[in-house]
């Protein structure tokens, strides 16, 4: 409503037309019901304008049997109908003048009216016959379904009220049938729509499944790549660690060689071996073994350095030589108890499954 609680003609026009949306329509209806006489007048004016729109409908002939059905309905409701004849259609006023001016036209009009009445009666008779046929079909169906028949009166005849009720029932059944057909069609349409949506959803689901499978495959590949990368990293870290160890050892070797004075001893080859080796050491800086012309090692074999010492065991394993393809070998032994207890040195050739406590084949040795 406006500030003064009123609306204008145009608003009530839309209201009477039913063109407003639900809430606004209800709001205005409530206002009318509240008793605003001014708005009621505006509404009535709008209602008349809207009703005027009905006159824009083209004339369509109302079926004559429709009146029969209304009569039947009235009779079924217990209303007494005495009229049976349908009055002739109202003639436009202008026609009367025409009749006065041309009497011969009256004869022609009578002829036309007679023809019209004949056709109408013929149609009505056909419709009544059709109605009777439908009634007979209905009764037949009722009997087939063994439903209780309409109770006849004592004389064995159906009364007019029962007949009217029966016709009314038939009409209601027809309407129900028509409604059921419409609902069935609508339901079928809804079913089709639902099926189409279901198919779309299934297609979408299949696409999503395919996409998911691809994603899982890609994830597996990525995990594999990640594992591989981890392995490479671990290897690189191990290599780096080895390099760091080697570097540290090299530093120790350099420190040892720069120290003075250094003790040194030559190891002597056993019979039949051409190799030679020398050890340099200082007790607090470690020991370095340098060997030359070492024999070719079998696959997986190695050269091992052992220290002789007093006590038991009389020999201890102190490390494996790093051997070059040229036959040179090198080993640094850090300072410690083994070096302090050293009384001699031994180089052996060890197979793959060598023992850490029992020396293998002797190659070079010095026993003070």
């Amino acid at each position, binding site marked *: 409503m406006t500030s003064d609680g009123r609306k204008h*003609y145009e608003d009530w026009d839309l209201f009477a037309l*039913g063109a407003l949306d639900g809430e606004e329509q209800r709001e205005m209806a409530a206002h009318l019901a509240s008793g605003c*006489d001014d708005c009621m007048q505006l509404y*009535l004016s709008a209602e008349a304008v809207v009703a005027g729109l009905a*006159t824009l409908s083209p004339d369509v002939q109302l079926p004559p049997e*429709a009146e029969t059905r*209304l009569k039947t309905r009235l009779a079924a409701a217990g209303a007494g109908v005495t009229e049976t004849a349908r009055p002739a259609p109202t003639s436009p006023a202008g026609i009367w003048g025409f009749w006065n001016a041309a009497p011969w036209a009256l004869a022609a009009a009578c002829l036309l009216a007679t023809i019209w009445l004949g056709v109408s009666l013929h149609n009505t008779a056909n419709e009544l016959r059709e109605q009777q046929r439908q009634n007979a079909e209905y009764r037949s169906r009722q009997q087939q379904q063994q439903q209780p028949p309409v109770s006849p009166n004592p004389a064995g005849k159906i009364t007019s009220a029962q007949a009217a009720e029966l016709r009314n029932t038939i009409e209601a059944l027809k309407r129900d049938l028509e409604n059921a057909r419409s609902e069935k069609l609508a339901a079928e349409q809804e079913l089709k729509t639902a099926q189409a949506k279901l198919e779309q959803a299934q297609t979408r689901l299949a696409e999503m499944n395919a996409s998911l499978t691809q994603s899982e495959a890609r994830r597996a590949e990525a995990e594999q790549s990640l594992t591989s990368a981890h392995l490479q990293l671990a290897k690189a870290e191990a290599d780096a660690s080895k390099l760091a160890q080697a570097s540290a050892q090299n530093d120790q070797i350099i420190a040892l060689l720069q120290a003075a004075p250094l003790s040194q001893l030559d190891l002597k080859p056993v019979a039949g071996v051409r190799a030679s080796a020398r050890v340099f050491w200082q007790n607090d800086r470690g020991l370095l073994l340098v060997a030359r012309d070492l024999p070719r090692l079998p696959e997986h074999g190695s050269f091992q350095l052992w220290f002789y010492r007093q006590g038991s065991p009389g020999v201890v394993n102190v490390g494996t030589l790093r051997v070059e393809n040229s036959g040179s070998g090198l080993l640094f032994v850090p300072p410690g108890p083994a070096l302090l207890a050293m009384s001699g040195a031994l180089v052996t050739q060890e197979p793959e499954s060598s023992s850490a406590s029992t020396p293998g084949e002797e190659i070079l040795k010095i026993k003070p």
Partner: protein
Amino acid sequence: MAGSPQEPELLERVRARDADALLSLYRLHGQRVFSLAYRLLRDRSAAEEVVQDTFWKLWQRPGMFDPQRGALISWLYTVSRNLALDRKRKENRRAVENVMLNIDGRVPGAMAPEMAAMADPAVSRAIRSAMDALPADQKDVIDLAYFEGMTHSEISERLGAALGTVKTRLRLGLSKLREAMRDPARVKQ
């Protein structure tokens, strides 16, 4: 639109439960009500049922129509349109707002001039001429609202026009029809 001189008497008899009087009113107005129902539904069988139900309403509750408020034909048009649109939208979400029933029982003052004009046969010709003279966009929205029972929102969606535009077109069109009803002689026919 012409009201019958016997109409008030027939209505009195209907109130007195005279079925013959109802049939007489049916013969007076049934044809026009059927034409409207058919225009709305485009189904002869359904339109006939709407006509039946319209007169049945009058029979069952004749007090719903107040002769002081307007012409019987207007009431019949309104009721039959509501019934037809209800039927049309049976499976739809919005039931027709039957404003006429909501305000039933109120006794307003004098009959609106437009309603009084409904008794003049020249008025229906004037309305038709005025409607023909409307710009197509105004005619279209009135047609969709009245004969298709669409709200302005639905019309806006259907035509792809702004809501305000639809309202304006409806108001302008109906305003011209009101003028035609008030002064049918001024409408070019």
